[in-house]
């Protein structure tokens, strides 16, 4: 059993299975997949597709949180990059659009990293600055309007398919593999964990903690930029007011559901993405169930608490005590 199921991801996988089962009950066609025009369709694909932005955000966020930081600006960075992509799309080719947006994400990340690593600000306040100002910058780029575009290249990024899978899913998967290869294929992941565990001790041991912190915020900015481009490509337009609104909270939630502590240290990329999928499976399930959307937040709160309780060592401790009591009674 332990060989099949990793000990660390058990709570998350169980939670996902339970939510999937509930979704199957409220919508009997939930697991149906069909191939049409060379692309897979179905609720499951929908969950993956809709979950892409938060999954991408959580990839960057998990590294930031591992260094004991937090990035509140990712939603605003999404809005900025979506606005840039939408304004450039019709006049320029895809490479230029991608270079400009990813570049913008990189600069946003550098700014956050600079405030935290060099100026020594507390991450929550440092990134709050860009969270407030960033949405203004995005509106400045779109001049307060919703900018639409029709460039087929960029639309393909949001709605096209590769080998039957929607492009956003492929991009997210690619980013997961790339990030995993970089941080786990080298000592980088360990150094990031060391920085989060105890920055001072790591510094004394020779870890370039400043460079580590700078790097994770930059990566978080780049991931947010990609998420912003995909979100814009999906609706063929950029809405500076609402693109990525409150998604920073979903991303943080995904990371925490994935078992990474907000106090830094050990992190898991795969479980963070799994956390994003749990959130999206829940959202899609509520949509399909036909309940009024007013219930969304309530259900979300309850599920989040349930997943957290499952993970809590105290909770399993209580369950263990209860089991032992029952055994002694019998």
């Amino acid at each position, binding site marked *: 059993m332990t060989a099949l199921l990793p000990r660390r991801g058990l709570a998350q996988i169980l939670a996902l299975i339970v939510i999937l089962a509930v979704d199957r009950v409220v919508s009997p066609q939930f697991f149906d997949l069909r191939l049409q025009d060379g692309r897979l369709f179905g609720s499951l694909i929908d969950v993956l597709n809709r979950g892409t932005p938060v999954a991408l955000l959580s990839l960057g966020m998990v590294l930031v949180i591992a260094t004991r930081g937090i990035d509140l600006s990712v939603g605003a960075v999404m809005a900025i990059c979506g606005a840039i992509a939408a304004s450039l799309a019709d006049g320029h080719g895809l490479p230029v659009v991608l270079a400009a947006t990813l570049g913008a994400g990189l600069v946003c990340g550098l700014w956050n990293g600079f405030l935290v690593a060099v100026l020594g600000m507390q991450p929550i*306040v440092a990134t709050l600055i860009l969270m407030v100002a960033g949405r203004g910058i995005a509106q400045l780029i779109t001049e307060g309007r919703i900018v639409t575009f029709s460039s087929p290249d960029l639309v393909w990024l949001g709605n096209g398919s590769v080998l039957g899978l929607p492009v956003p899913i492929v991009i997210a998967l690619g980013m997961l593999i790339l990030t995993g290869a970089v941080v786990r294929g080298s000592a980088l992941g360990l150094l990031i964990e060391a920085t989060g565990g105890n920055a001072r001790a790591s510094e004394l041991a020779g870890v370039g903690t400043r460079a580590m912190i700078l790097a994770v915020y930059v990566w978080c900015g780049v991931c947010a930029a990609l998420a912003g481009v995909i979100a814009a490509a999906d609706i063929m337009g950029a809405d500076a007011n609402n693109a990525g609104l409150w998604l920073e909270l979903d991303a943080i939630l995904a990371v925490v559901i994935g078992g990474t502590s907000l106090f830094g240290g050990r992190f898991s990329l795969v479980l963070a993405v799994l956390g994003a999928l749990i959130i999206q499976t829940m959202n899609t399930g509520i949509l399909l169930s036909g309940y009024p959307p007013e219930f969304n937040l309530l259900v979300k709160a309850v599920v989040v608490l349930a997943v957290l309780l499952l993970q809590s060592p105290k909770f399993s401790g209580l369950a263990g005590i209860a089991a032992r009591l029952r055994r002694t009674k019998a």
Partner: protein
Amino acid sequence: MKGLPPVLITAIVLVAGFAACAVQFPNIASTRVVGNLLTDNAFLGIVATGMTFVIISGGIDLSVGSVIGFTTVFVALAIERWGVPPLVAVVAILALSAAFGAAMGTVIHVFDLPPFIVTLAGMFLARGASFLLSTESVPITAPIYSTVSDFALRMPAGGRLTAIAIIMLAIVIGGALLLHLTRFGANVYALGGSRTTASLMGVAVGKMTIKIYMLSSLLAGIAGIVFSFYTSAGYSLSAVGVELDTIAAVVIGGTLLTGGQGSVIGTFLGVLIQGLIQTYINFDGTLSSWWTKIATGVLLFAFIALQQGLVVLARRTVRKSAGAAT
């Protein structure tokens, strides 16, 4: 504390900022503007006082904005639709919000979960509950509302100190006394310094955690009532994002997010700095809505950077004088 205490630094920043604004717009330096500043930020000052306790104890409370939203909707519906006397409605909502905070504190303590996430779930829960009550804005027409919102003490030179500003000032002063002069306050600092040490020294960590979150939610409930006085309506989308303004005010006020350090007076100054930024932008009047956001961000950065610079400067002078002594 060595060197300049953070409160003093925040005070210097506030005075310098106010002076800079007054140089550009002489009208800012009037009791009328200051009175409005206090009224407009009354609800923020009240929540921020509660948040200060939470953050000093090493926690965080993201649910306050939603609790304010829920309170306004609940009070409006209770008075207008369910025919409950205003006083009963107010008492009921305060009891409800205190119980909500106590529940969050209990979950945080008993299951040893991070406050950030528990209160995030609380934020979803309270906001979702207010959506369930009503998704539209409910105006409050009860006579006591117009009486309270019209009440004001006249200050010299035409300024008005409104009832809600007075409530805020009373809560800030009460909060400061509670934090700095009582055993409860000392325990809050002890918790933030180190939970283990605090528990070894005989602080009832569990009880304290529950009480602290209870206090924060209770103050958020009071802020919600003040907010409903301010707008004379209840709306489920009111005070979205206020938790972040509040945290920013507390941090600008010199309280460390890692806990163990901070003060209510500093927080009050932080609220005033944020209010000053808004007032400046209103006075300027030429900024479009997106430039307002950018300007807020830039000014926030300027204030925090200035504070950071002063902290470094203060540390250096201490080191120098220490070096001279030896």
